[in-house]
């Protein structure tokens, strides 16, 4: 479990995060959503320690990450896996070597054990035939899967995914979303996902934190988000005509199920 307490972050005079608090639960996909520039990525980078917050604290299973000495923080980071927006694979290394890199750096496994572990995780992300390929030779979806494989190779307790679906087609996005969800449940890890993809919200969002201009605007589950009454969140969710139509369809479906006329009127309003 990760507790974020009153995190603040600014660059120069500009405040990017203005006192955000939240709890990211273990074994669940915790989503941070919001429009571009709402501070999602900065918040995530503060949580993983890539940015130093100006105020507030981040607590990983009772351990205050922000107050840790750098040596302890370094070892803590080995429990964190992160998938970056552009995958951030090392261009000069093959897929297998990219995945093996954290093992080479931190584990005391033998060569054979490392190779076995790499095979396992690549198989887990359904990429068993791509060992010898270079990042430039594989598709965007495959890069994301290699990124996930590299993030989980050390058996982390926390998995962070920054916009895992950016630049992917809807079908591949779904594959990546489901993979993230499967891994979260299988390894019982705390997963935090930054996204503005509403499909992901509905597909994997166990807990959702909506950010608006650096502040927490709304928090809840993916069931609650449908019925939320936050105007900004609704404007964000139903920004596209297609989704507005989908909402109307869902409302019509629900109309049949709700017996109390007052409830229905309230919901529609």
């Amino acid at each position, binding site marked *: 479990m990760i507790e974020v307490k009153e995190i603040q972050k600014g660059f120069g005079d500009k405040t990017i995060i203005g006192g955000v608090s939240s709890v990211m639960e273990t074994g669940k996909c915790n989503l941070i959503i919001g429009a571009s520039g709402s501070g999602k990525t900065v918040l995530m980078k503060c949580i993983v*320690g890539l940015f130093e917050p100006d105020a507030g604290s981040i607590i990983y299973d009772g351990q205050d990450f922000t107050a840790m000495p750098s040596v302890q923080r*370094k070892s803590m980071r080995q429990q*964190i896996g992160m998938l*970056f927006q552009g995958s*951030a694979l090392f*261009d000069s290394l093959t897929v297998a070597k990219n995945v093996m890199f954290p093992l080479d*750096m*931190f584990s005391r496994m033998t060569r054979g054990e490392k190779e076995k572990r790499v095979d396992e995780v690549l198989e887990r992300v359904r990429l068993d035939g791509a060992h010898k390929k270079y990042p430039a030779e594989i598709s965007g979806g495959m890069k994301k899967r290699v990124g996930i494989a590299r993030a989980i190779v050390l058996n982390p307790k926390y998995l*962070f995914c920054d916009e895992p679906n950016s630049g992917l087609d809807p079908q591949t996005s779904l594959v990546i979303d489901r993979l993230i969800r499967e891994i979260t449940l299988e390894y019982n890890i705390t997963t935090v996902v930054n996204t503005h993809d509403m499909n992901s919200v509905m597909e994997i969002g166990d807990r959702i934190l909506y950010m608006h201009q650096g502040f927490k605007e709304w928090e809840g589950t993916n069931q609650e988000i449908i019925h939320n009454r936050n105007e900004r969140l609704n404007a964000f969710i139903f920004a596209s005509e297609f989704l507005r139509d989908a909402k109307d369809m869902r409302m019509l479906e629900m109309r049949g199920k709700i017996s109390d006329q007052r409830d229905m009127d309230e919901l529609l309003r």
Partner: protein
Amino acid sequence: MPFFQHFGAFLLMLRGMFTKLENPRMYWKELMHQCNELGIGSLGIVAIISVFIGAVSTVQTAYQLVSPLVPISTIAQIVRDTVILEFAPTLSCIVLAGVIGSKIASELGNMRVSEQIDALETMGINTRAYLIMPKILACLIMIPLLVVISMVLGMWGGRFAGQAAGIMSYEVFDRGLLKEFIPFNVTFALTKAYTFAFIISAIPAYYGYHVKGGALEIGQSSTRAVVTSCITVLLADYILAALLLD
């Protein structure tokens, strides 16, 4: 950003390199990789410019020395000292500032922009130590070796050109090479080589590591890195000459 802010950030970057290494074997592997990339990879260009510089020096010195009172073997002496004192360390390093400097700045810049540096940091790796230190150490190991090779090839080029242009025979050139040789000149050249090796690796590393933006900014930082390195090399060249040859 003002000069002192850059300089402060540069010093902090250098200080940040000195921490406990996560896995010394990986650092050794990276150092060897960089020695190969930056050192062996630059051997060809250094060899070519050295041979031609030596050859041109011989021909031009012969052209200027028209007095029959000066023995012809003096040309070899002049070529030897010019190559050892200036051409091999300074000119080679100016060329290497372009070759190695742009390579380091663009490689680190690309890693920064594509979040590869962030990925390493997230894993708990000190990126200053893992990415910058091996490059600087590789340059400190390989560039003095390249300068020594440049000295030898420069003199060999001069010797060859002297014979080919009918200026003097190999025997006369060799006699001139051995006449009044001052071993300190080699020490001075190597001092310059070590200083320049640090400059042409650390400055581009600073520019590359601190890139913000995208492809355009990587190109700009690469250019800035090479220009700053070249100017700093020339400045250091003058300071070292003034201090050590006084």
